[in-house]
């Protein structure tokens, strides 16, 4: 039975639960928008990274480099699109 629950994955779950609870602080306590957003950004990106490395085994094969490049390229273009659009259509309109 024990071999079915590897420590790495269990730790992964525990860690992502903790991160979720931290993120929930934003809802259940009183804090400024800036602080709240910072917490959310940090917890969300750490969790995403956790999934990628621990659960999705992104780096395990010899294509690991291509896979990471692909994902980071995607993230960069995604952020450019999101923030660029917000700049154009809301912040600088």
């Amino acid at each position, binding site marked *: 039975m024990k071999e079915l629950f590897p420590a790495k994955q269990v730790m992964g779950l525990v860690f992502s639960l903790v991160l979720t609870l931290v993120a929930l602080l934003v809802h259940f306590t009183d804090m400024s928008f800036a602080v709240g957003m910072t917490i959310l950004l940090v917890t969300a990106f750490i969790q995403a990274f956790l999934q990628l490395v621990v659960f999705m085994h992104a780096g395990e094969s010899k294509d690991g480099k291509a896979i990471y490049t692909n994902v980071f390229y995607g993230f960069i273009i995604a952020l450019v699109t999101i923030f660029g659009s917000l*700049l154009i259509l809301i912040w600088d*309109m």
Partner: protein
Amino acid sequence: MEFFERFAVPHPSPMIYASMVAIGLVVIGIVFGITYFKKWGYLWREWFTTVDHKKIGIMYLISALLMLFRGGADAILMRLQLSSPDMEILDAQHYNEIFTTHGVVMIIFMAMPFIFAFMNLVVPLQIGARDVAFPRLNALSFWLFFAGAMLFNISFVVGGSPDAGWTSYFPLAGNDFSTSVGTNYYMIAIQISGIGSLMTGINMITTILKMRAPGMTLMKMPMFTWSAFIANVIIVFAFPVLTIALLMGTTDRLFATNFFTTTNGGMDMLWANFFWVWGHPEVYILILPAFGLYSEIISTFSSRNLYGYKSMVGSMVLISLLSFLVWTHHFFTMGQGALTNSIFSVTTMAIAVPTGVKIFNWLFTMYKGKIRFTVPMLYSIGFIPLFTVGGVTGVMLAMSAADYQFHNTMFLVAHFHNTIIPGVVFAMLAGLTYYWPKFFGFMLNEKIGKWSFWLLSVGFVLAFFPMYITGLDGQARRMYTYSEATGFGPLNLMSFFGAALMAIAFVTIVYNILYSIKNSPRNIGNDPWDARSLEWATHTPVPEYNFARLPQVASSEAYWDAKKNGHKLFTGELKDIHMPNNSGVPFIMGIIFFVAGFSFIFALWVPAVIALIGIFACMALRSFELDHGRHIHVKEIKEIESQYEGGAK
């Protein structure tokens, strides 16, 4: 009867009725011809069910040429209408429809399949592979593109064409101002073929990353493969944006949502924003493979290796990133602040730098080379000065303050035709001439080819350079007529003559193909141009399995090494070759997508739901299917190879 009224064209004219009759007759003729010559079985076995990248490439090529003529017919009508003041060949509504379909057909259904044709034909051969990574998916990509193209092309005889421009800006494209189903066609036909493009992107990237011949590291890939790789990276990250934008446009039109409306919190400008987040990368998707073809051709016909290989690769990688950072330059006038416009002005000008690096590399390749002035080389040499003019006017447009003057005038129209025609269209024609012998086993006639080149170039200059002037004088784009007092008349007449010359050039190209089918010699060997990369190292025409033995590579010009420096390309024993099985499912899925698309366009929900279920059923079937492909055995390979060696062909 009421049911059928929705399929009527809302704004008919004798021209449209004539087209209906013509389309009907042609379809009947084709069906009758195929039946009479008993070719259905052949078509099904060899083409509809094929998963062979070469045949798929040829189908893309034929489709692209057909669409070139459809888009060209639109173009010549527009130029005729504008050839003198107050013409009445087209009314405003028809003019709107025609510039819309012209743009969409040329970009989505002509240029895209053209580059996909060359990617399919050339990339696996250049990297020494037997097919692409996912041959079945490749076939599906093609049939989705084809379904989208056919859907879009029936719009003008069934229900009416889209008329809000190829950019389809809202609120004009919303239900209030575009009342016919035309814009539904736009949204859904592009969606279907866009899904196909996305799948090609994934397929090609995987192929290039994983299936290169032994010894071919990334920095030893031929330049066309590099350009295809980068273009596909852009496809994978740009097309999902279009997918979502089209989805939102569709729900706005069909389900009354408020994405791009001007009420209830909708934001019409978000469409323009998303359209260009996809749209600017899209122009680089088109131009990069063209650059790749020019690189191959210029180095072959200068009898020199490509100058500055590393900077060529570097500039393309840079372009792939920068192309996502400039989209606002398409709507500098939309009302965002000076800060935004300044940022995007700078990024736009920056993108001209890597493009300029490439121009110099081509010039240096030719410098001190022994240039052979063949038809592909003529197109490449013509491209360099003409495209530079397009780039320079692009930088003019990139200055946001100045763009308030240029935007939406004929100056802009001149700019982008000046980049797309010498950039993309010339490259496609050069590539067509260059690769024709590899796939069809005979050369196109050089003499006629040279005529086509000169007609096209002179025609191009006559047709588009006057627009820079009328544009600066204030002639707006997308206006169906103008008065004599504007003084635009003479220059527009000149444009018409230019367009007519271009039309003649395209006719000579068709004539050339027919002439060469009949008259060209068939014993041309594997390497008629004395070329440098692997695609020329195999037989002509290419056997199904591409290479009997996989080639060994030590540089980006492996075949040249083999010819001149004693490099051993093919070593070792023949082995059984594993090939994928043919399948009819992609073709059938294409048909179902067509039906689904058509039903959505006309809001016919019952067939729409049935077709969607059909699509999911095909996917489920695929999940359960066991398909291990088949093997071509050594004995068979030997037979095929000996046929080539005996010169039987």
